[in-house]
């Protein structure tokens, strides 16, 4: 990036961050919650961009990693009293990472559509397990639990007020974004992009491509799990619906709408999609999905690089 573009980037970053920090002070409760959810879904979409946009692997397994993040957090919150935020985080991340390691091991040998299908099948297996193992997961009804305090043991403990929760989610999402951005710019990230561009050549210059893909899937799953933990904190319930493959499909849609390979794009895509669904469902009740679908198709045809790609080209002119 040139000097000027770096300045523009960080100015934009700070302005948007400031707006997101101040938003809950002015937004009504409904829209504050809505914004917090956009951030959480945005993080989930961003985690999947590591695979779709940077490595060139389309995952339909992100509902599983997200769901295991939720259920992992739920397990910690239900089994330890008083509930601990750190344990919930740890448990959710471990569950998601374990699922991701499992899926990665079997799926990364396969390419393109075969990879996508394998991740989809594995996520459905997790869905079936969670749906049927009623004693532990609550089955169809899911689990409800209470929110832990925002605490670091021995330092401080704070009850989550609605605004604090928003800021906590914002902090986690922004830090995740900065971390993922750095990873995509690291030598490791360069290898992922090289795999996307030309897998055979990347292998031929000495990279064990399968191992890189495996780590990419695990990293991606870890951040998806983090989104799951945030979701658990926000909504205080876990349900098998979140593990269902439709969620994975939506994540892919967020990416495509927003612009893959940009990290920010998927968040924009999530915001756009969720707002669109909210707006259309008010007017068209149950038929709103038809319109969502039509708009999605139109966007894929007319904005193939997503909203962000479109905005970039428009700004450059």
């Amino acid at each position, binding site marked *: 990036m040139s000097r000027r573009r770096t300045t523009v980037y960080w100015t934009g970053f700070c302005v948007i961050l400031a707006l997101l920090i101040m938003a809950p002070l002015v937004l009504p409760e409904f829209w504050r919650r809505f914004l917090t959810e956009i951030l959480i879904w945005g993080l989930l979409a961003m985690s999947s961009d590591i695979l779709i946009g940077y490595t060139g692997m389309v995952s339909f397994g992100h509902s599983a990693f997200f769901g295991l993040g939720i259920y992992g957090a739920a397990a910690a919150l239900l089994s330890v009293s008083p509930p601990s935020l750190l344990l919930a985080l740890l448990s959710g991340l471990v569950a998601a990472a374990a699922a991701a390691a499992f899926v990665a091991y079997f799926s990364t040998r396969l390419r393109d559509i075969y990879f996508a299908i394998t991740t989809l099948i594995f996520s459905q297996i997790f869905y079936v397990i969670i749906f049927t193992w009623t004693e532990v997961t609550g089955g169809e009804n899911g689990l409800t639990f209470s929110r832990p305090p925002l605490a670091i043991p021995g330092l401080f403990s704070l009850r989550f007020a609605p605004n604090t929760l928003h800021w906590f989610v914002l902090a986690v999402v922004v830090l995740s974004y900065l971390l993922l951005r750095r*990873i995509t710019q690291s*030598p490791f990230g*360069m290898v992922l992009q*090289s795999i996307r561009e*030309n897998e055979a*050549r990347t*292998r031929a*210059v*000495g990279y064990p491509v399968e191992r890189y893909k495996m780590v990419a899937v695990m990293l991606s799953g870890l951040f998806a799990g983090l989104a799951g933990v945030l979701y658990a904190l926000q909504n205080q319930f876990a349900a098998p619906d979140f593990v269902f493959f439709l969620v994975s499909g939506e994540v892919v849609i967020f990416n495509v709408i927003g612009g893959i390979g940009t990290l920010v794009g998927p968040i924009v895509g999530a915001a756009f999609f969720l707002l669109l669904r909210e707006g259309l469902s008010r007017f068209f009740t149950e038929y709103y999905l038809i319109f969502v679908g039509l708009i999605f198709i139109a966007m894929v045809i007319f904005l193939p690089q997503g909203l962000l790609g479109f905005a970039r080209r428009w700004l450059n002119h």
Partner: protein
Amino acid sequence: MSAALGLERIGAESMPRAASLLSTEDLTVRFGGLTALNRVNFAVEHGEVRAIIGPNGAGKSTFFNCLTGVLRPSSGHIRFDGEDITGASPDRISRKGIARSYQITNILPNATTLENTRIAAQSRRHGWSLLTHHRAYRDIIEKAEEALEAVGLRGKAGELAANLSHGEQRNLEIGIALATEPQLLCLDEPTAGMSAAETHDTMELVRRIAKNLTILIVEHDMQVVMELAQRITVLHYGEILAEGTPSEIQQNPRVLEVYLKT
């Protein structure tokens, strides 16, 4: 001490092949009913420039595919630098020190010229670094720039590889291979599709890099081959038809019959 040295010498004499940088033993590749390589016994010494010639479909590219792990031979063995590398994966073979350029240009078209050699140079160091910006690793960038310099593309470092001319892309192909710091470089028709002037320049380039490397080169232009290589191996229907110095090959009646007369 001297006894030990003596033993070593005897050992070395009883295994003359161990000295070769690369050798194959009865290397055979079958594609269904077609035998693309048939019991090929081949050896290259350290520092040699060896040309491999042969008519279309002789098995030259198939031979390179075996050496670089893209194809697993149906039978036979490949030894490189004292180790059996038969059936090893392409990435392991690359890290062992064999690099290759492709007959059909095989680069990262959407990356810049420098990024192409940078990713190759990086494969030897820092590949698993996740939290440092890639630009912080000056050593990688220097290696990548050296490789571009060696193939005359230093001035095009920032250019998108897809926007280079065909001849420049062919040279970038060699630059990527060089950036992996190989011991053995396999060039598969590096001048394919080049003009006479470009061919001349590329051959100069190969001559320059040959000073520090062992090179295997597949090339159709006989003039070029004769000037460049110390020894020539002629493949014909997957078998070694002849092997020798350029002048020996030029006078070999079997070679003249199947190849040079065309």
